[in-house]
């Protein structure tokens, strides 16, 4: 491992030849820093031992491990993990009661029914909180980080908010759907999303019927979920909305309501027929715009920000986008071949990409816990912090999802980011509600041990360098000297407290926001 340290440390690759951007990275160039990068992008970072294990696999096997890793330790969640009946529709009996009470102007019964509904809503919001905690915990604990990362991708892509639909179990079902297809097939997911109760409610398709179609789902299906704005016509929206009429749900199940479906002839993407919603989706999948748009979206999530103006895209990124798009089409929208190609290509490991992405709040929190091995602390406080940082999971700001990139960052989110990491390291809550502080100490010893196991013993300078390489992916001189000062102030004692203080400083650096 000592040789590897010399081979990759501080080494800057020569300017990348854009024509070679898609060529897989040479195994000899895949070391600790590259493995760290891969773990951050294809998951939520890793500890020194994990990074080093990934590095030892070499690029091909490392990527396969992340893509395939079957791990029996994590079972699919049990079907009855959450209560599916809190927001169930009225039973026939209750419906009859309500109708009778209304016609008899029986205010007491009506008030009773209203109160029942309100109580159910209170319980449902509580369950939503439980589901939020459940998913956050799963991201923190999962042995298959790429799977949860893809769930997060799909959640931002097919953005649906509990705020609007007010049915926690439907949000849970949708989240599970994203997990089932996390690394599966985009086409399949698109076919399923027009049957997803949460989505159907969110975009009002349950109110869409023959004669008065609601265009919301048809529009977003093309604009945000597949083709991108400007690649279809207004008439495609109108006709698509007609095709989607009657796609609704009852309780937790998709229902195709034949009576509400418009069976008349429609014209979509230049073809005519008595199209259904499923035909509409097939039409979308046949458009070239879909693979282009989805490739860009995957690139932006896993590789780097893309400028809105296509002319400003770097030559290397352009080569990669085109190559990956071809892979995506050739494999009929299977996700794994696309990710394999992205995670293996030279461009992915270039200076243009490595350490240039702003961590999402979820990356920051989940990654911080995972890479530093901090206690998980109070997940409710972490969810509050995520919300303050702009990423309240299950509550995306709109159907367009989270804008990501620089929109995560302003002066207050900067402090919340720093203070949330300080919370993980010290237990002191970011809202300074000290009575609720978490007294469980952070033990930095395992991290130090792992560093030593990977790199061997070393001087203060070397330890500082390794800490920075692991946490920042780089070793800026100003950071190294700051950490050395911390060590020296403690008489060079490399103990738990010194380590924690170093990490407090590192996690408060602007560079810690990057991965």
């Amino acid at each position, binding site marked *: 491992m000592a040789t590897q340290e010399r081979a990759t440390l501080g080494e800057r690759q020569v300017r990348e030849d854009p024509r070679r951007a898609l060529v897989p990275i040479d195994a000899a160039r895949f070391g600790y820093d590259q493995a760290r990068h891969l773990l951050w992008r294809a998951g939520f970072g890793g500890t020194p031992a994990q990074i080093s294990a990934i590095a030892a696999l070499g690029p091909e096997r490392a990527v396969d491990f992340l893509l395939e890793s079957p791990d029996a330790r994590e079972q699919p969640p049990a079907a009855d993990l959450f209560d599916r009946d809190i927001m169930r529709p009225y039973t026939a009996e209750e419906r009859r009661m309500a109708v009778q009470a209304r016609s008899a102007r029986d205010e007491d019964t009506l008030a009773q029914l209203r109160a029942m509904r309100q109580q159910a809503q209170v319980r449902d919001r509580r369950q939503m909180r439980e589901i939020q905690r459940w998913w956050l915990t799963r991201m923190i604990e999962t042995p298959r980080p790429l799977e949860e990362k893809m769930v997060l991708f799909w959640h931002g892509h097919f953005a649906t908010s509990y705020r609007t639909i007010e049915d926690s179990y439907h949000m849970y079902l949708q989240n599970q759907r994203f997990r089932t297809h996390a690394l599966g097939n985009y086409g399949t997911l698109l076919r399923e999303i027009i049957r997803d109760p949460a989505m159907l409610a969110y975009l009002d398709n349950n109110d869409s019927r023959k004669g008065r179609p609601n265009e919301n789902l048809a529009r977003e299906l093309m604009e945000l979920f597949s083709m991108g704005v400007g690649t279809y016509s207004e008439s495609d929206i109108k006709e698509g909305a007609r095709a989607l009429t009657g796609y609704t749900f009852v309780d937790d199940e998709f229902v195709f309501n034949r009576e509400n479906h418009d069976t008349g002839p429609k014209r979509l993407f230049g073809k005519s027929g008595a199209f259904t919603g499923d035909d509409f989706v097939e039409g979308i999948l046949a458009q070239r715009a879909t693979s282009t748009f989805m490739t860009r979206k995957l690139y932006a999530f896993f590789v780097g920000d893309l400028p809105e103006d296509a002319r400003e895209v770097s030559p290397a990124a352009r080569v990669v986008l085109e190559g990956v798009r071809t892979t995506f089409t050739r494999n009929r929208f299977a996700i794994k071949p696309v990710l394999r190609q992205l995670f293996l290509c030279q461009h992915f490991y270039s200076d243009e990409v490595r350490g240039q992405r702003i961590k999402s709040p979820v990356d920051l929190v989940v990654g911080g816990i995972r890479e530093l091995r901090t206690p998980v602390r109070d997940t409710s406080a972490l969810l509050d912090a995520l919300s303050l940082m702009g990423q309240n999971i299950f509550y995306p700001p709109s159907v367009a999802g989270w804008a990501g990139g620089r929109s995560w960052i302003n*002066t207050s989110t900067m402090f919340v980011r*720093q203070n949330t990491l300080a919370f993980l390291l010290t237990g002191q809550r970011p809202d300074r509600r000290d009575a609720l502080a978490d007294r469980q100490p952070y033990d930095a010893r395992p991290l130090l041990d792992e560093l030593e196991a990977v790199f061997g013993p070393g001087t203060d300078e070397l330890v500082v360098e390794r800490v920075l390489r692991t946490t920042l992916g780089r070793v800026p001189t100003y950071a190294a000297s700051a950490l050395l000062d911390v060590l020296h102030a403690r008489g060079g004692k490399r103990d738990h407290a010194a380590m924690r203080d170093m990490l407090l400083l590192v996690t408060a650096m602007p*560079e810690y926001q990057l991965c």
Partner: protein
Amino acid sequence: MDLHHSKAFTRRAFLERGVMLASATVVAPGFVQGTALGLPSPSAFLASLAGVPEDRVLVVVQLSGGNDGLNTVVPYGADEYYRARRGIGIARGNVLELDGRQGLGLHPALAPMKELYDAGLCSVFQGVGYPNPNRSHFKSMDIWHTADTSGTGEGWIGRYLDSECVGFGAGESGSAQGAPPAINIGRTAPLAMQGRKVNPVSFENASVFRWLGEDHDRELKGEYDRLNRRESASVGDTNEAFLTKTALDAQVSSDLIRRAVAAEPLVRYPGNELARQLSLIAQMIRAGLKTRVYYASLGGFDTHAGQGGANGRHAQLLGQFASSMKAFYDDLKAQGNDGRVMTLSFSEFGRRVSQNASNGTDHGTAAPMFLFGPMVRPGVHGTHPPMSDLDGGDLKHTLDFRHVYAGVLDSWMRADASSILQGRYRPALVLRKS
């Protein structure tokens, strides 16, 4: 660097200023008072109206839970009111009269607000609501926040900030003192402030608007400052440069805000949560922050049971609201800043006309909305929803709240109301004729 409002301002000037502010505590404790407060302030509101629009500030006060509009502005002239509210109605003799012809008056607990009203600092818009009213707190609040009856999308203030380019593109340092374009005082940021490009700046207490790691080990603060108050080593418009600049902005803002709120207010504020928030806001305005929008809120208006009448729980809440607003404007006036600051208050809905069996009121619809400040068109505006023509026991709104938003955006903030509200709403007349 792309700058808001095209004020020439270089990065170097910002840095120098930032460093100067950063060291001001040591060098000159009275620094902020000495400069920002000493700026020629618009002594009269007329000067401010004719002056530069970017001096203008909007404060939003949210009354959460659904404030009972009928017991706030009481239609004492309507018999229906007293018939529907035998337990909690406000007797005519207790009402502070606003408009004798219409038979309208304020709840007695609103006496401080009546003073503002009499001084021409308060305007009342009657019967404000929106079509197909939603009675869920969450949904209706979202509708008010997004200015969209589906309650989805970005917030109206967020869209304002996006459209005014005070977002991350220019950086918060787009304003000379590194102040955030909008600040919410509270634990979580309201949807209203959520933009596409701009994330709301939000803190419950200025004392957490800083790095808390130093509380753990004070010796780290020096190193922390060195790491967070520096120029980026990277060249060009990289994310690293952006983060380094925002980190510096954060330090400067934090210094500025914490020093601002450390100053003693010029008047005594009552001891309630809204007053605390408004006094923080007043001190930030006084310190000359370039922030355009502030957001404060007061909860507890969900008075399903034991609401009380002239006295009791609702009266207490109204008293807190009115006394806080009065202290706020007294403070602003003493500062000479009152003419720059308009306040808009709203609640997600009013309450049902008839009281319920628990001497409370359930979720309803339309309610009055208030604007405060010396620039507002004082008086009672619009028409009261007819008490004899209800919709299933609820008031029918006579004014869509988006007309009021449009008026504030259009004539006070000088922004493009129809693009921000994503629809054309005839702006309500909100400013007095000068």
